[in-house]
């Protein structure tokens, strides 16, 4: 395949044509302009093509005979390669990546003004955080920006067919379950919960505070020992199907002309410029010129010339940033400031309990951090718990530790809901959090030195629900050069250097 790709005449017809070897037919002698091409050289050229075409047909026949029932073709392995040039390359085709792509196309000021490519290494999304998440959406955050992003996302999801609907396709059904989040707080946490509640009401979220007695009255199946206060989301909270949202974004973006490529980014080609600040300090400015990608299971690499790169690689965005020489300078300097995002493994357990809470079951988050929610109506629930720093599991694979449920999660759940003493684990899966070790919040905006790399990652578990808002914010930053609707400057990369953490107290 390498030989064929390097033939210059093959390149003439572009990368995307599926039956490249049959195309010389178009140039066959029935062309009306034949009179212009009567030199012996041209006719020789023609016969060369004809011979070649015939050889290709023979070769293909032979191949089919030797490999029956195999649709592998020697000549079309490059279908998933990206175009050679693009304006914006989005690294990571999760829900955030596709949302950014959609909003870029939506906000571009003329049709096909931007050529956007989304690069995703795994088209099956087997390890993607998007589809392995529990799919919740809530307004109960402590930062006003997070609350506003959730409010916008809820509005977006409610009218999803106005935004992402396609002509001639079925309406999108997100399978939204409108059941609120219920946060429980102990004596120590009650004041924080109340402050958060005030912030949420101020931003326009519909949340109610419940004292222990009210809680017991509303949800008789909860054991309220040790609970001082609870906050319950009344509107725009619940859970939905992440896969549907991802696909809706993807299909809409593709219909608007976004390219996708199933390949892996292995590096960047950058240009370097040294500059001195007013204080006489020298700073290295870098600019990404090419993104180098590799097709999986092939040594072939390909570089995409680009103007902007958006790092939406989620849990792996730290690694992508490193490829762009972010965090490789002296520690303590801006060049040496790393993107503090790393993958963390989180388990989600499915369990069955016939006597568990019924229709009124919210997504309950205990003061201990354990959570569960209803899944369907047949007495099935899913739940989990974030492990402590010390017992953080190895994120190398996605194997599930069932003992963790037995030893850590179950006692907490059974203490809160006595009916869960008789639960039975059905199955479990593990997914990755794109964990921001600095302040558990997303990074939105470009890097101060590698000026054309934008970040939209590190959301530490609430990336799915903020995807519509984050996509819009990044697109505004690119198209209008500033945030237009929501001011998210607090989430910029600079905060890691200037040490201004954006603290979010409601992290699950």
């Amino acid at each position, binding site marked *: 395949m390498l030989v064929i790709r390097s033939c210059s005449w093959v390149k003439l017809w572009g990368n995307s044509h599926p039956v490249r070897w049959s195309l010389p037919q178009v140039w066959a002698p029935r062309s009306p302009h034949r009179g212009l091409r009567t030199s012996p050289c041209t006719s020789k050229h023609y016969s060369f093509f004809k011979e070649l075409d015939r050889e290709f047909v023979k070769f293909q026949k032979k191949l089919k005979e030797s490999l029956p029932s195999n649709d592998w073709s020697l000549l079309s392995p490059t279908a998933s390669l990206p175009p050679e040039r693009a304006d914006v390359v989005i690294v990571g085709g999760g829900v955030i990546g596709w949302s950014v792509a959609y909003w870029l196309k939506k906000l571009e000021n003329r049709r096909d003004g931007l050529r956007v490519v989304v690069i995703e290494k795994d088209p099956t999304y087997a390890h993607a955080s998007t589809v392995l998440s529990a799919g919740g959406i809530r307004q109960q955050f402590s930062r006003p920006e997070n609350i506003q992003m959730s409010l916008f996302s809820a509005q977006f999801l409610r009218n999803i067919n106005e935004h992402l609907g396609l002509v001639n396709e079925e309406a999108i059904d997100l399978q939204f379950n409108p059941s609120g989040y219920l946060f429980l707080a102990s004596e120590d946490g009650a004041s924080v919960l109340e402050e958060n509640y005030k912030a949420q009401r101020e931003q326009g979220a519909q949340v109610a505070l419940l004292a222990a007695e009210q809680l017991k009255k509303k949800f008789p199946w909860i054991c309220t020992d040790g609970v001082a206060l609870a906050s319950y989301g009344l509107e725009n909270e619940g859970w939905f199907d992440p896969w549907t949202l991802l696909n809706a974004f993807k299909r809409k973006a593709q219909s608007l002309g976004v390219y996708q490529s199933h390949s892996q980014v292995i590096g960047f080609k950058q240009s370097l410029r040294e500059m001195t600040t007013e204080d006489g300090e020298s700073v290295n400015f870098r600019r990404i010129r090419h993104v180098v990608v590799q097709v999986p299971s092939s040594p072939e690499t390909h570089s995409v010339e680009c103007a902007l790169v958006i790092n939406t690689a989620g849990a792996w965005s730290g690694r992508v940033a490193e490829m762009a020489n972010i965090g490789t300078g002296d520690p303590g300097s801006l060049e040496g400031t790393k993107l503090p995002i790393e993958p963390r493994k989180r388990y*989600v357990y*499915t369990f069955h309990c016939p006597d568990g809470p019924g229709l009124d079951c919210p997504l309950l988050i205990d003061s201990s951090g354990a959570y569960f929610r209803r899944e*369907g*109506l*047949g007495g*099935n629930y899913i739940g989990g718990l974030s492990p402590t720093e010390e017992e953080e599991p190895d994120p190398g694979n996605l194997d599930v530790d069932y003992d963790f449920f037995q030893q850590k999660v179950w006692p907490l759940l059974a203490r809160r809901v006595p009916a869960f003493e008789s639960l039975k684990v059905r199955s479990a899966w593990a997914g990755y959090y794109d964990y921001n070790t600095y302040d558990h919040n997303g990074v939105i905006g470009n890097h101060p030195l590698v000026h054309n790399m934008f970040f939209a990652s590190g959301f530490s578990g609430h990336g799915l629900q903020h995807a519509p808002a984050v996509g819009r914010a990044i697109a505004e930053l690119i198209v209008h050069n500033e945030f237009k609707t929501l001011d998210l400057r607090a989430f910029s990369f600079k905060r890691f250097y200037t040490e201004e953490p954006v603290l979010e107290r409601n992290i699950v």
Partner: protein
Amino acid sequence: MMPEDTGSHSDYIPPVSRVIVPFMWMRSSRAASLAVCVQTIGALPAVTWGASRPSSSSSSPVSAVRHRLMDFLDKYFYDIEAAISWSVRLKQWNLRRKNAHYAYTERRYGPYVAAAYFALSKRGGVRFQGHTDWLRTDSKGQISWDFLQLKEVPVECVDLSESSLTFRGLDNIVSLKELRELYLRRCPHLDDWALSRLYVFQDSLEVLSLAGCPRITERGLAALHHLKNLRHLDVSDLPSVQSKGLVRILLEEALPGCHIVGLDYYEGLEDDDSRVVPTADLRH
């Protein structure tokens, strides 16, 4: 230049057919899918006008017309697609307009009159507290404006049946703190999101009818657990609700004092084992 023996000639042909045949197939299937779409939108007369002109080579007039129709649809594929997407957007805009919040009326006359005006302009009805008869539009759709005097009288019952009510349209009635009866029969745009907003009536609502709403599912019905004072709930004829018997049992559990009409115990109880299994279970 031409191949000499027939064997190599037959070798020569396949590449072309391989290019052309899928392309032809794509053309016709694309046009056919558009034809279906155009029919649903109601733009077909404009299309058949182009195709029904007398054709000169009519061995079979039907197939000729069909051929020309397909040809037309194929030729103007992107134009028709754009027209359809505009008509969809127009519909969405119209729906938003119909569900606009009557903020001016609410400021000027208070929430009760505003809600009554909203319901009447949607061909619905209202009943004020202390009145026995419903206030409705007459057969010509005219409204008698006497209710403007009832600024201070709370609205007890609202009937918005067969209206295009959505989540957004509920803005107009959520401020009715004394609402006791709400009828939302056969509302084609009422969905689960809208149901989740009925919690605002949790202290007052006694009668609720959702009969015949095609978009309501069991996920939205779960949000009715807030309505602790509900005495009568009509959930008959909801085509999107799955495992109806189970939903009924769970609803009765969540609303102990409520009389539920419409969902039968035996509906969907035999074959819903597969439906109740969580999707996450199947996925992993």
